[in-house]
């Protein structure tokens, strides 16, 4: 592609003239290349951001891009409509769709809010009969939709459902029965009706194409016999994540059938094993030479962890977020995992466990520490600032952190980001809302100030603890690359939110709950919201008048309000997003589009 620029000066001119963000129709330049060549070249572009840029160059490039695009990513399903997508892109094979606002994961969005996949599927069946992949996040999917999907796309290969709701295991049965070319079935953390495990038995006997199977989050037991036969005949299986009902002896049999696995999610790790079977399981792990990712380990009994040791040295990602290991147990395990790049754990490992991480895992880039007892009042459990410090000290390549803790200090965070200045994702959750620095009793402003000043590559930030408007002054001033900001129980006045909206040039997603930000703050972002994907505000001080004004001034934004039950003027939740599709037609009665 670079060489093309050098050869033909006309192309350079075209590129410069695209600096005006006007619609491509206004600029037309004779392309030096036949369309097929341009399409061929553009088909090598995969990043959807690059493709967006390319499509703005000129009309020819816009057309070449739309004909050559096979994968589409829609971050907000309501920002566009199925009709618009179908019109623009004739040759789509892979669709990624995200629906509800992220706070729906925490029960802040009522049921039946929307984001239903069905209308999309109907359009796809019409326009993209060759559709192969569908990846959905926070969408509502019914069994009927799954059946429709299974019957409408004969070449369908990959289905991934994360944090979705509305379907049951019956829907999965349709997929297993009809999708003859399925390579991927990835069902993660959905709110579904787990009727029975018989769906797994619905894969036909001559079905062999599966490469990725993840049913870890389903509770009902599947037929082990069916599972074993399935794993046996799918020789290309690379990822297998079974559910809790699969015991250790069964795991051993599966591993023997699939030593080529790269990613494994075990079932329950607690069952009684005779010594002989223990040895066999350890050998099975020894024979899995390609294992890089390990997860599951439900109810992990320390007694059996040693069977994992032979496989640990090649592990790059270890997910222990459902294994309640104590620090001494965890320390022994982590000592065998020197090549870890990514670690998810529960805070039962405590600070001592995290010290071990700092010592044993110098290549670590991502760590997530989840709370084992998030609603427990007992503050003696879990992790503190010293665990985080220890990790930052030993793991200088750290760039992604999600950390739930009981206490934190400004000084600790300042040291942490000195140790690890390359953070791109910094998500700190001090679990008691509005809690100050526990040593100095001051707000946590300086902590997040240090984060945004030091970590220039920061893309995602979640703040917590006692925070004044000063935190947001820092964020607005320093966080030049920030794209996603999550705020809860923070700030003093409208000024805080105004600072963020006035700064942060790359802000795309802003989600706020329980903060004293009102109409002035909301309206200060008028111009900005069109360059963002969405804004969420709940339990703030916004009123109907403020939202109405926003909707009036910015017709290309959808302003959706969920009102306070008792108080007509007060707004409980407002969701603002840009859209080329206009107000949505499927809004439920409790959602008002202004």
């Amino acid at each position: 592609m670079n060489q093309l620029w050098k050869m033909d000066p006309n192309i350079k001119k075209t590129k410069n003239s695209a600096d005006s963000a006007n619609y491509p129709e206004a600029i037309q330049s004779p392309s030096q290349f036949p369309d097929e060549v341009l399409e061929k070249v553009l088909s090598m572009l995969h990043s959807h951001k690059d493709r967006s840029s390319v499509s703005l160059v000129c009309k020819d490039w816009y057309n070449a891009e739309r004909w050559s695009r096979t994968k589409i990513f829609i971050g907000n399903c309501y920002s566009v409509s199925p009709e618009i997508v179908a019109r623009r892109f004739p040759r789509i094979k892979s669709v990624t769709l995200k629906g509800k606002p992220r706070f729906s994961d925490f029960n802040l969005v009522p049921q039946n809010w929307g984001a239903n996949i069905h209308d999309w599927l109907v359009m796809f069946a019409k326009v993209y009969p060759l559709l192969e992949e569908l990846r959905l996040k926070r969408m509502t999917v019914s069994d009927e939709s799954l059946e429709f999907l299974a019957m409408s796309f004969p070449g369908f290969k990959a289905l991934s459902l994360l944090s979705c709701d509305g379907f049951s295991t019956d829907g999965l049965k349709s997929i297993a029965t009809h999708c003859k070319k399925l390579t991927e079935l990835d069902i993660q953390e959905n709110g579904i009706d787990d009727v029975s495990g018989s769906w797994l038995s619905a894969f036909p006997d001559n079905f062999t194409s599966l490469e990725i199977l993840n049913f870890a989050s389903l509770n009902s037991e599947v037929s082990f016999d069916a599972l074993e036969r399935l794993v046996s005949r799918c020789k290309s299986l690379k990822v297998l994540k079974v559910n809790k009902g699969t015991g250790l002896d069964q795991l051993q049999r599966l591993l023997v059938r699939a030593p080529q696995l790269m990613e494994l999610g075990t079932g329950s790790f607690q069952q009684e094993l005779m010594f002989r079977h223990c040895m066999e399981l350890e050998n099975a792990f020894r024979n899995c030479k390609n294992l890089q990712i390990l997860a599951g380990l439900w109810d992990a009994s320390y007694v059996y962890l040693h069977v994992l040791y032979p496989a640990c040295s090649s592990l790059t990602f270890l997910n222990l977020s459902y294994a309640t290991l104590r620090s001494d147990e965890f320390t022994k395990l982590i000592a065998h995992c020197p090549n870890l790049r990514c670690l998810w754990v529960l805070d039962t490992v405590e600070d001592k466990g995290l010290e071990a991480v700092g010592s044993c895992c110098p290549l670590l880039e991502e760590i997530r520490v989840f709370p084992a007892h998030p609603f427990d009042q007992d503050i003696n459990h879990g992790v503190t600032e010293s665990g985080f410090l220890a990790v930052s000290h030993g793991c200088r390549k750290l760039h992604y952190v999600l950390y739930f803790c009981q206490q934190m200090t400004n000084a600790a965070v300042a040291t942490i980001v000195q140790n690890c200045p390359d953070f791109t994702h910094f998500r700190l959750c001090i679990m008691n809302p509005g809690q100050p620095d526990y040593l100095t009793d001051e707000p946590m402003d300086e902590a997040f100030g240090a984060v945004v000043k030091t970590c220039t590559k920061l893309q995602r930030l979640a703040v917590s603890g006692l925070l004044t408007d000063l935190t947001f002054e820092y964020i607005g001033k320093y966080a030049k690359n920030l794209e996603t900001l999550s705020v809860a129980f923070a700030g003093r006045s409208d000024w805080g939110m105004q600072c963020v909206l006035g700064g942060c040039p790359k802000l795309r997603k802003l989600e706020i709950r329980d903060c004293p930000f009102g109409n002035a703050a909301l309206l200060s972002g008028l111009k900005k919201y069109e360059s963002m994907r969405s804004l969420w505000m709940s339990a703030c001080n916004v009123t109907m008048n403020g939202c109405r004004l926003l909707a009036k001034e910015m017709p290309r934004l959808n302003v959706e309000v969920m009102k306070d039950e008792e108080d007509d003027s007060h707004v409980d939740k407002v969701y603002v997003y840009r859209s080329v599709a206009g107000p949505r037609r499927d809004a439920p009665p409790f959602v008002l589009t202004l």
Partner: protein
Amino acid sequence: MEMGKAANYENELATELRLGLLGTDHHEPEKQSFPSSLVIKSNKRSSSEMDYNSSDKCDQDCAPPPKAQVVGWPPVRSYRRNALQQQKKTESDVSGMYVKVSMDGAPYLRKIDLRVYKNYPELLKALEVMFKCTIGVYSEREGYNGSDYAPTYEDKDGDWMLVGDVPWNMFVSSCRRLRIMKESEAKGLGCL
């Protein structure tokens, strides 16, 4: 500490008519009030009138109000929250694997945490100290012959086994309870 803060808090509530959080309000004159989400699973209004009513209740309480559970906080996905709550019910005590230990002739039983020990010698040493006895050294052929006492255990099948025959990890996972038998009785187990 909690009681003192609670008393101040209640005083403030009586005059301020606002629902703030414990421990957050002392340093600035501008109080930070967190609106409605502070009350879990209720459809209460967020207006200050409702807050006033609940502060009445606070004045009458003697104990400080527990940390209020907030809807959707901490931000843990529903799936994960449910899964962990289930585990909490089914998992064995995270802090140990406690088994009863009885000794012939002793008036009461003891309990020990098997997870604390790394191997048999450590366990046997601990038992010797706890019961002030000598257990001696294990041999495959002779059991604990030559010592006053022999350690035995009941396994998951309900059988009484001699401690030391199987690998440590296997023992830990199958041991239900321990019994330190007098050597005279244990002789029957030792010679097979």
